[in-house]
C-alpha cells in the first residue's frame, strides 16, 4: 500500500518545520515516527494541511502504559492515514506519569473527540484543550484508570496458575 517513501516525508518535515525526527517503515508498510509532546499538534496540523501527503484521516488513537520506562511511562499512539497517497503513519508520543498532558487534536479531526476521551478513561492522559474530557466507557464515579498495568485483572494471589506449575 505504501506509495510514499518515508524519506520524502522526512525530508519535507525537515524542510518545513525543522523537525529532526526519524521516520522508519516497518515490515508491513506502516511508517513510524516518534514525536515530543510539544510538537504533536503542529506536525499533525501540517500533515493534515499538506497538499502532497494530505493525512486527512485519523484512524485511531490509543494509549499504552510502560511502567518500566522512567519519565515516559505513558504513550499515546496515533494512526493517521493519507487516502490520496494510500499510506499509514503511526506517531508515538511519550508522556511522564506525573504530568500526563498532551494537546488535543479535536480541532483538526472530529473523530479525535471520543478516541481521546477513551484514552483518558483508560489511562488518565489529560488532553489539554479537549472540549469535553469525561469518562466515556466506565462510570463517572470511578477514580482509577483501569488499563494501566498496576491494575491486574485477576487476583494476583491466585495460586492455580503459577508459572512453576507449568514447568516455566
Amino acid at each position: 500500500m505504501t506509495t510514499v517513501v518515508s524519506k520524502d516525508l522526512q525530508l519535507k518535515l525537515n524542510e518545513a518545520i525543522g523537525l529532526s525526527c526519524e521516520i522508519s517503515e516497518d515490515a508491513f508498510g506502516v511508517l513510524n515516527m516518534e514525536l515530543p509532546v510539544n510538537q504533536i499538534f503542529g506536525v499533525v496540523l501540517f500533515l493534515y494541511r499538506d497538499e502532497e501527503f494530505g493525512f486527512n484521516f485519523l484512524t485511531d488513537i490509543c494509549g499504552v502504559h510502560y511502567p518500566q520506562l522512567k519519565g515516559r511511562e505513558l504513550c499515546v499512539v496515533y494512526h493517521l492515514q493519507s487516502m490520496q497517497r494510500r499510506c499509514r503513519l503511526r506517531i508515538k508520543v511519550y508522556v511522564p506519569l506525573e504530568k500526563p498532558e498532551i494537546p488535543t487534536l479535536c480541532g483538526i479531526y472530529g473523530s479525535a473527540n471520543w478516541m481521546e476521551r477513551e484514552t483518558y478513561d483508560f489511562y488518565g492522559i489529560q488532553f489539554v484543550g479537549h472540549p469535553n474530557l469525561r469518562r466515556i466507557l466506565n462510570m463517572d464515579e470511578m477514580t482509577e484508570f483501569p488499563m494501566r498495568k498496576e491494575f491486574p485483572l485477576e487476583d494476583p494471589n491466585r495460586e492455580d496458575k503459577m508459572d512453576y506449575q507449568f514447568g516455566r
Partner: protein
Amino acid sequence: MKTNQEFLAGLEERHKPEIPYTTLNLGPTHPATHGIFQNVLQMDGERIVSGEQTIGYIHRAFEKIAERRPFYQITPLTDRLNYCSAPINNMGWHLTVEKLLGVQVPKRVDYMRVMVMELARVADHIICNSILGVDTGALTGFTYVYQWREFIYEIYEEICGARLTTNMGRIGGFERDFNQIVFEKTRKFLKEFPPAWREFENLLSRNRIFMDRTIDTGALSLERALNYGFTGPNLRACGVDYDLRAIEPYCSYQDFDFDIPVGTTGDTYDRFVVRNEEIWQSLRIIEQAMSRIESMEPVYHADADHYYLPPKQEVYRNMEALIYHFKIIMGEIEAPEGEVYTAVEGANGELGFYLISDGGRTPYRLHFRRPCFIYYQAFPEMVKDQLLSDAIVVMSSLNVIAGELDA
C-alpha cells in the same frame, strides 16, 4: 436617561420567554435504539436542537481481558464485537496474529475466508437494511428476508458448529475442511436468496413513504464524514470508493472481480442503497470463491506446526499432537516482539486491530479500532434540526452495534 422607546425595547428583551426546550431521553433501553445507549436530546417541539450520547452500558473491558489471554483465547472476545457479522471479526484477529507470527496461509484458505466473510457481510446487511424498514414502519420486508440470515447461520453451523458467536477459524486456517453440505447450502443460498432480496428491494427502494422518510435525512457531507472518521458503507454513501478490500487487499481479495458501490449525498437513503448493492457484490464474490475452492487441492490450513492447532482426531491418538495442543491452548507458544496494525473491511467499516507484543505469551497491548465507536459521535450533527422520527432512521441506517460500540 433612556428614552421611552429604548426602555420599552429593553423591557421586551428582559421579559422574553425562555425557549422551552424539552429534554428527551431516547434510550438507554428504547426499542428503536437497537441496543443500550442513551441519547439525551434537546427538543423544540418535534425538532431536535442538540443531542448528546452516553455509551458504555455494556462495556466489558475486552482490551484489558485480552492482555491476560493467550492469542487463541482472544478469538471468542472478537466474536462479541460486532455480533451480527462475527466471522469477519474472527478473521481480522487471525490475520493480525498471522502477520505478527509470520504465518503464510495457502490460497485456498484465503478463498475460504473470503467466502465466510462475504456471507457474514450479507447477513449483517440483511439485518441492517431490514431493520431500517421496520423503523420506518414496514415490517413485511423484515419478516421476509430474515429467514435468509437464519439460512446463513445454518451454513456457519455446518462450518464450525456455532451460529451467532462463531469462534470460527484457527490461526493459520480452519479447523476442518468445508464439508459438502456447506457447498450445497451455499449454492442453494445463491440460487434462492437473490429473488427474495430483489423483492425486498422492490418493496422499499421505490416506496413513497420510505423515500420520504429517508431521502435528505441525516445527510453528512463528504468532508465532515472524513473528518468524523467514517468508513465502510457510511462513507461510501457520501461518494468515496474507499474500500479496504480493494485498496489494501487482504485474504487475496485482489483475485476477485467486484465493484464498489458509492452514493452521492450521504443521506439515509444512500446508505440503504449502498448496502443493497454491496449484497449483490458479495454474492458475486461468494460465487467466485466457491468455484475456486472446489477446484483446488483440499488444503485448509497453513503448514505451521507451532501455531496451528492439531486436528482433534490426531490429538486423541498422537502424543506429539497432544503436546502441541496443550502448549498452544495454554499459551506456551511465545510470539515474536513487534507491533502490527491490521484492518479488515468489516460490515460497517474499517475494523482495526492494533497489537503490541513484547515477546510474551499474551499481547502487551491490544486495541480494537471499532468503526461504530468512531462514527457514532457524528450522530448529534446528523440529526440536528431534524425531527425525532428522523433520528430513529438515522441511527438505524448508521448500523451502530452496541457490542462493538462499547467493547
